[in-house]
């Protein structure tokens, strides 16, 4: 499956060069005795917004974790912006930001402390003004200094979104970003993802949400039987 790889990146795509943002060839990954990914081939050009669909257990999370270098492929080859997922894992991590379905925040730390830690570890400059603005944007300004263990699931998801916005990696990987959010929160995710694409970021999100009106993905991929197939795409982004 080739998405936009042959057409080149859109204007302003971040960190692209000529390398695809994501390039997987025959990627196989087993989890225990189950083979979850059975030879995934996919290219995504920089600056695209791609939705990944599939039933529960189809391998969406596995694929995202593999791109975030949390899992290694058992066979095949994967590259992010031309960097090998295994041999150049640390360089890949400098280009990728993952929002996991669990949220990924430390419950005993406050939202502000979690974001400061994320910025420090991502090697980003800390700007308290920007941090406060981002918390305001995701609707957590009033709870910024509250420990995350007192947050609702939706608030945790908003905090994860704030982390994505602040780190603003070249490749955004999001696993069920709409889960636990109210409608206003879901619209906020749509707006943030669209804006990220506008800044040239590549966005790959796994979601069960159907027909998000405020989101216009460049393509929708579906994971079926451990392989990726194209479910829908804007004609301009599909390669031969």
């Amino acid at each position, binding site marked *: 499956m080739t998405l936009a790889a042959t057409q080149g990146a859109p204007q302003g795509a971040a960190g692209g060069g000529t390398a695809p943002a994501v390039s997987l060839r025959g990627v196989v990954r087993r989890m225990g005795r189950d083979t979850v990914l059975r030879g995934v081939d996919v290219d995504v050009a920089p600056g695209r917004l791609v939705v990944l669909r599939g039933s529960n257990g189809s391998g969406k999370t596995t694929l995202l974790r593999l791109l975030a270098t949390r899992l290694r492929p058992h066979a095949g080859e994967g590259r992010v912006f031309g960097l090998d997922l295994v041999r150049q894992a640390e*360089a890949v991590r400098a280009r990728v930001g993952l929002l996991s379905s669990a949220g990924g925040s430390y419950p005993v730390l406050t939202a502000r402390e979690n974001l400061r830690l*994320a910025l420090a570890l991502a090697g980003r400059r800390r700007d308290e003004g920007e941090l406060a603005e981002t918390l305001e944007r995701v609707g957590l300004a009033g709870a910024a200094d509250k420990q995350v263990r007192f947050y609702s699931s939706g608030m945790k998801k908003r905090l994860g979104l704030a982390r994505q916005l602040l780190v603003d990696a070249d490749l955004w990987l999001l696993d069920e970003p709409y889960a636990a959010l109210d409608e206003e929160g879901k619209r906020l995710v749509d707006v943030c993802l669209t804006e990220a694409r506008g800044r040239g970021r590549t966005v790959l999100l796994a979601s069960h949400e159907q027909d998000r009106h405020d989101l216009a993905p460049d393509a929708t991929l579906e994971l079926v039987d451990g392989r990726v197939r194209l479910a829908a795409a804007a004609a301009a982004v599909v390669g031969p």
Partner: protein
Amino acid sequence: MSDLAAVLAIARKDLLQELRSKAATVATVFFTATTLLMMAFALGREQGVLERSAPGVLWVALVFAGVTAAAQSFQADLEDGALDQLLTYPVPRAAVYLGKMLATWAYLSVLGLLLAPIATTLYGAAVTGTAAVALLALTVVLGAFGFATIATLYAALTANLQAREALLPVLMFPVVVPIVLAAVRATESLLGGAGGPVGDWLLLLLGFDLVYFVVCASLFHFVVDE
């Protein structure tokens, strides 16, 4: 960001978590207090026996407390997928290891430095002279370092297992024996027992600390990367 800054950020985060949750503190303080008291009762009233047992009991209490502290450190990281998130940042695995190890070391050193005078007083073992007190503190700090290097690696190894509380001590105790042995002998020498020259034991302890540190830091990525 330099790797050192990442190390310090992770260590600070772990210590802040412990300061707030007190999850390990409550468990380890009660455990060590109970161990010291129960062993004192079990060993009887004979002063010589109590005095000779003080180094061993002190280090047994510290080792078990260390297991709890190290396990707790990773337990907190597992909640809400925070460890997974931590490992997606562009920070070398060795830096993640070092940050977590430093936090466990700091915690165990403080616990050991508090525990040592209580144990010596309770068991009637005297440490005479400023130099001996300083060497005892050094023994505790070096022993805690060696223990923290191993405990951090093994706690990461067992973090995702269901029976981690049972498996962690079973797996790590055989490896930690040289550290415990050297630390107990050094403490014994300082408390006036027949431990031999304290300098030799401290050098042995330092040697094991360095070897374990290098080995564990090198192996950490095999443990956390799937």
